[in-house]
């Protein structure tokens, strides 16, 4: 294991909650408030880990398997994404497919755990989650197609961590991929305009309503898993968007700075936009697929 793999692991395990703190602080600044400290999410996680759990008598073993499997799958997926143009910890041909399907595994278990409670609200959230994910999936894969076409590689590391790719000629398609994937990032991580993580009305929730019944350490595992997922998606988008430098250490620095800036951008989007009506969400997701589809079309004759 090289020192870069070690840095990768440390960043994946420690940095994600900070992104939530940065987003919350950005939103507070826009609203003219002071906002919680940047490290508040870490405190929240520790607090949740120390609490007890209330578990509905309607549930089965699936209820706790939801957070457990989702966190395990997300962490496994995080090993596959190259961060800051450094090779991922594990890399092999076809790892982008494993990445997408690991996240899908998490979705399966989160939604099933929601249905396990028998609550109509949680069922509603689960239905929305899997329905919207259905619309977002082609966008992710069309992005992979575009990157495979540009780099000639079949692994995430080859697509995102090779200083030869992407060549300047494919700048246009890459901008489209970044735009499409940024929308997927917002949708998959339940940010505004798809979902409001701070909403208080169950009827309008997507992700939050699925985890209404989880408490204590289980809720902590869910929140932490969600933060890791946001971080991993940020790594994916930045892999396409970030310019290279000559120096490996500068690349790490650049990566950490830009992940935090991406969190600021998410915060800005959240502060400056209203949440979309549920009926309009599919349209935005289809546009994201179309953006990446156009990226693929521009690469046809290469």
């Amino acid at each position, binding site marked *: 294991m090289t020192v870069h793999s070690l840095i990768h692991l440390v960043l994946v395990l420690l940095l994600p909650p900070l992104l939530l703190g940065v987003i919350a602080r950005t939103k507070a600044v826009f609203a003219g408030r002071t906002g919680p400290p940047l490290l508040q999410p870490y405190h929240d996680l520790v607090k949740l880990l120390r609490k*007890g*759990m*209330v*578990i*509905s*008598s*309607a549930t*089965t*073993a*699936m209820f*706790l*398997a939801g*957070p457990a*499997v989702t966190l*395990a*799958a997300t*962490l*496994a997926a995080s*090993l596959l994404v190259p961060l800051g143009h450094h090779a991922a910890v594990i890399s092999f*041909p076809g*790892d982008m*497919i*494993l990445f997408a*399907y690991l996240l*899908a*595994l998490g979705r*399966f278990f989160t939604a*099933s755990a929601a*249905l*396990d409670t*028998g609550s*109509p*609200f*949680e*069922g*509603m959230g689960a*239905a*929305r989650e*899997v*329905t919207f*994910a*259905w619309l977002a*999936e082609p966008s*992710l*894969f*069309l992005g*992979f*197609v575009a990157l*495979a076409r540009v780099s*000639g590689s*079949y692994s995430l590391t080859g697509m995102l961590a090779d200083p030869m790719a992407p060549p300047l000629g494919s700048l246009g398609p890459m901008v489209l991929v970044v735009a499409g994937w940024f929308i997927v990032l917002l949708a998959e991580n339940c940010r505004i305009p798809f979902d409001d993580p701070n909403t208080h009305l*169950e009827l309008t929730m997507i992700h939050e309503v699925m985890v*209404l*019944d989880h408490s*204590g*350490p*289980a809720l902590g595992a869910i929140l932490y898993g969600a933060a890791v997922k946001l971080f991993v998606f940020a790594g994916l988008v930045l892999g396409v968007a970030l310019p290279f430098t000559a120096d490996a250490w500068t690349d790490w620095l650049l990566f950490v700075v830009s992940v935090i800036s991406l969190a600021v951008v998410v915060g800005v989007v959240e502060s400056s936009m209203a949440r979309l009506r549920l009926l309009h969400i*599919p349209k935005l997701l289809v546009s994201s697929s179309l953006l990446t589809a156009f990226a*693929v079309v521009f690469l*046809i004759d290469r």
Partner: protein
Amino acid sequence: MNTTLLLLAVVIAALSGVPSLWPSRRGEAAQSIATAMLLLATALGAAAAIAVLGGGAGRSLHLPLNPLLPELTFGLDALSAVFLLPACLLCACAAVFDLGYWRANAGEGRRVRIFLGLLTASLMSVLAARDGVAFLIAWEAAALSAFFLITTEHRQREVRTAGWIYLAATHAGTLLLLAFFGYWAATSGGFAMTPLAPAAAGGAAGSVLFVLALAAFGLKAGIVPLHFWLPGAHANAPSHVSALLSGVLIKMGVYGVLRAAWMLPGPPVWWGVVVLAIGATSAVVGVAFAIGQHDLKRLLAYHSIENIGIIFLGTGLALLGRATGHAELLALGLGGALLHVWNHGLFKGLLFLAAGATTHACGTREIDRLGGVARTMPQTAACFLVGAVAICGLPPLNGFVSELLTYLGMFRALSDAPTIAGAAMVAIPALALVGAMALLCFVKVFGVVYLGVPRSAAATAEREAPLARRAPMLALAVACLGIGLLPMLALPALQPVIADWVPAGTNPPDLGALVPCSAISVLGLAMLAAGAILWSSLRSRCDRRQRAVGTWDCGYGRPTVAMQYTATSFAQQFVDHSRFLLLPVAHRPATDALFPGPARFDSHVPDLVLDRMLLPTLRGIAVSCNWLRALQRGKVQVYLLYVFLTLLCLLLFA
């Protein structure tokens, strides 16, 4: 040697139902004998398959039938052996499951026993047949035994209808097969199923043969739009028969397509593109209709159409690889298709058996009436969960491995010629779409049927399924996990088939080197371990403070079990988005008064081909042919006159 072993298995399987013919009051002994004989036969068949895949040869055997007909030829090669292995496993599972079925439905026991044996025997013979005549005899025997198995519960009108539609469809397929073998004999000069010379196969004759084979076998495989018989037949057969239909019988269609493609070397590029397009369409349409279903087994049947589509995606890639001489594309496509044949057999067999155990315990197939089954049937629920995760293609189970092979093939095709790259650019997002839709569907089924609280006292399972039903499910679940976690054990078995498909003299690419087996294995095991550790540590945290509380009701103090999200409401958003394809039919009660009375709401998604196109057309034809009834006089003498006149005309104008 191996072929003899297989034919011995065929004889034992065919005779397994014979003891049931002796009248006995209870039939206990006959049932045990039948199961034992079927287990023996499938073990022999599996041994033959493993021997051939391990490098053994299956010598051709020639059986003279009678002096007038050509002799029947049987043999066993790698392609047959790959299909034989899951067929044996599933037939054995069905035989054991039948022990449980028979105890509950004693009246139909004899029928099922006899035709289960015959179906097993004829499926084995289809795979062993090496000439057109033997193939057609075995094919028809399999089709007819399947018909009698589908119509086991023939006292219900719905079952009879499904049976007749199946019979009509399978005979339409046989007619096309007759045309195929007739034309084959005219082209190749005999009925023997051996590869044609590439020069002869490449021309128009080869393409006609391929299209005939695609239509004939596609009808059996259930590709869209030839799938119309499939949902009804799968839904109305006893569950272990559905498992066989979905896991083995429709795979015979895939086998036929692959066999025909093997017989016609040097394919043009368009064959591959057509098969790829059929695969993508079947996969998307199949899963979209599955989401709209309310009947548990009908839903699983539509997923068979989806998975046949995924298998066809791999087959199309293999044909493209063969057409362009791109050996890696061929290896990945063929490997993906064949491994998905195995995997689909395993997880769909598992799902049908689990669904059968569930519907039998609860007395209904309606998803919206079931609920909370996991409380009383935890093992059945766990088995269904394994099948559901596998069918969505999720790691660390077997469905992921075969889909990964197909994906890898498609990504490799991206750097090929523009036609092939373009096809891959459409097929990759299509497969991704199908995966996400399958996930939607199985979260719905698993969540609504097994999780939550029972929706009614009537549809509540009282106890776990008996051992005879659980044992086959557990065996299949273990196989699903095994291939998912240790794919390096399964892939070498497919290598001999790939060696058969590459042009003679060239080295076939090693599938194990193209697929990152060890990485999948390590990550899968690590994730499983991490998930288990996290789960048990969460579990240990809750035991100490466990209190009996209900689900958080969001402030509404009087929730009822009827307020749980149903399958209909779960799928409603998707069905609304896909209205243009699914054309759902809903009867909504009018709410016109301030205090409306009791009302009924129901909705269903009829089949696009059968209910919207085929039945109306056929009804129209039947009505417009009413005038022909004038000829139908009901007197034998008149009919003899017709025969005489027809013969006269034929002899005069011949």
